[in-house]
């Protein structure tokens, strides 16, 4: 038995989280789900799809086409095709902001800066180098050192009154700096804000920005204070879509429609 309408699915298997978006032909988001990717990408993708379809009041038979993306894009057995996360984030963001934009995506393991022209064509992109400093993995590494849950970081950073600046490029050495600051009696909120500042710095240095900047990714979704800090840093208002963690999956679903 099929649901009430035909749908397109986009599956973004990231290094940290798997995201699925189910959309209709009018490019409306009907269902979605986000889950830790874990070690069995295929099973996680299956689960996310099933949950998203339920939310969309649809089932597998209603899917016209599925496109996968992300680090584990080749592990999605039910996808008909795969696209890179750069292409999918571009497409997903252009749906909400159809103009020339620079996208900053801060993911679990990768940062991306993608530039689009006013037709949505990619004119260039950059990813972080081999090092994962400045990505979600950096914050995941630092939270236990401060003995705080990852999800508490945003709230703590907001409380900071005297940000601690960390100097190192390297996650491991940043960890040492964090310990040194704890020893010197610095407050946790000030250190957390310093960690956020490190993330921003690593992204800002990747490329020059155009007039309209969009921020996406799981790190942004869970730490909105990063966005306001970035706005202050670059002196520009930043656009954030309703579901910043889903833009890759939404872009994949849009590819599925093509």
């Amino acid at each position, binding site marked *: 038995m099929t649901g009430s309408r035909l749908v397109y699915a986009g599956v973004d298997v990231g290094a940290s989280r798997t995201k699925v978006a189910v959309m209709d032909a009018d490019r409306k988001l009907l269902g979605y789900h986000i889950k830790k990717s874990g070690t069995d990408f295929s099973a996680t993708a299956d689960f996310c799809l099933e949950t998203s379809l339920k939310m969309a009041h649809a089932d597998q038979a209603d899917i016209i086409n599925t496109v996968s993306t992300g680090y584990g894009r080749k592990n999605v057995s039910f996808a008909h095709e*795969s696209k890179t*996360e750069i292409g999918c984030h571009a497409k997903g963001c252009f749906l909400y902001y159809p103009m020339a934009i620079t996208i900053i995506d801060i993911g679990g393991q990768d940062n991306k800066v993608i530039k689009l022209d006013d037709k949505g064509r990619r004119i260039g992109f950059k990813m972080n180098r*081999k090092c994962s400093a400045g990505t979600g993995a950096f914050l995941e590494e630092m939270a236990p050192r401060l003995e705080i849950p990852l999800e508490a970081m945003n709230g703590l950073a907001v409380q900071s009154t005297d940000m601690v600046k960390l100097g190192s490029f390297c996650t491991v050495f940043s960890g040492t700096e964090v310990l040194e600051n704890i020893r010197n009696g610095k407050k946790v909120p000030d250190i957390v804000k310093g960690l956020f500042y490190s993330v921003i710095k690593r992204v800002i240095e990747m490329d020059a920005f155009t007039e309209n900047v969009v921020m996406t990714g799981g790190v942004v979704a869970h730490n909105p204070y990063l966005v306001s800090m970035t706005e202050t840093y670059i002196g520009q208002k930043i656009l954030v879509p309703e579901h910043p963690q889903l833009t890759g999956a939404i872009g994949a679903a849009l590819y599925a429609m093509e």
Partner: protein
Amino acid sequence: MSEDKKPVIRRLNTSRDMGKFMADYYYELDDAAKSGKQKIAWCTSVGPAEILRAMGFLTYFPETHSAMLGTSRMATDLIPKANAIGYSPDICSYLTADIGAFLEGVTPLAKVFKGIESPPKPDVLVFNTNQCRDVQDWFNWYGEKFNVPVVGVHSYVGVGDVTSSHVASISKQMENMVEPLEEVAGRKLDMDELKQAVALSRECSDLWEKCLAAAAAKPSPLTFFDGTTLMGPAVVGRGTQKAIDAYKLLLEELEERVGQSLGALEEERFRIYWDGMPVWGRLGMHSKMFASLNTNVIASTYCSSWIFSALDPEDPFNSMARAYTELFIVRGDDYKEQYIKDKLDFFDVDGIIYHDAKTCPNNSNCRYGMPQRLAEETGIPSLTINGDLNDLRLLSDEQTKTNVEAFIEQLEENH
């Protein structure tokens, strides 16, 4: 777009002849080293090989050994051995891999060529710093180890126009090498033999240039990845008739392919220019990755490094000085930008890939804004991949793959 299909890459028949050429070359060196019947000089890859040929030396190029350490993926384990004795992991990984191999007493030659246990022991080492200063440190280390003389040319860097003063200075340094080399060789330099070596080198260079230029055809009959091994005779054999014979055969096959419109890939949708060193330990992987995306990396700055069009047998020292100073790697950014622009035009490419090789700043041309300037001037998009020539710890295959796939996806969507 998918890179899952099995790519069809048409191998050149002459690549087998090139393999034999290299085998003969290493066996001849090994025989000379063991029997002592001919003196052996070690020379940097763009060093003054013609002088050495003319004085009867067999010439060994440690950089080809380092490249083999890369392709055999032995390098990554050997580099730390050199780091441990004071050679930083941030300097040339040709140097560190090669010294590491020496310290460990291992060589890929032993794996490939039965009966060869080690690189041939040198009687003299000859460098030219035109490519980088690291070669001087590299050769001096061996000079001490083997207790043999080291002679060198100290070249200029960031050269704009090659002037008569540049030529005079380098030429004089080359002439000054003759006396110490004569002492090692036990014979005098015969100018007629030098002229002959320069003439042979020039002919080799002209043929190699024509081979590389064949890639301008659509579809291209060869790939950059072919070029990195086909260039063997131009590196180790310039100044010999054998290298000329090898390239005559190669050119014939390439021209035949061009005549038949037979590409190196079954489908050549996009044409890419590669700037910088190859990632030796990933040649096969990269070759297949691009082929599966119907993309041919057709030309490079790197493979053109052994074109010495200024060589003139009638004026050997001055023309060698000019030829070895005119090289891309010796030049300033203005020259380099124009050079790449000319190549983009000549080969009619869709995109450029810059390899930012962590341990080879001299051969990484993307660090001072050149990609952005060239993209602005030509409209041709580029991608920079981070990696290294030999140290596989300095690259992420997954990052490279995603970057390359996304770049080709971008070319496809904007096509």
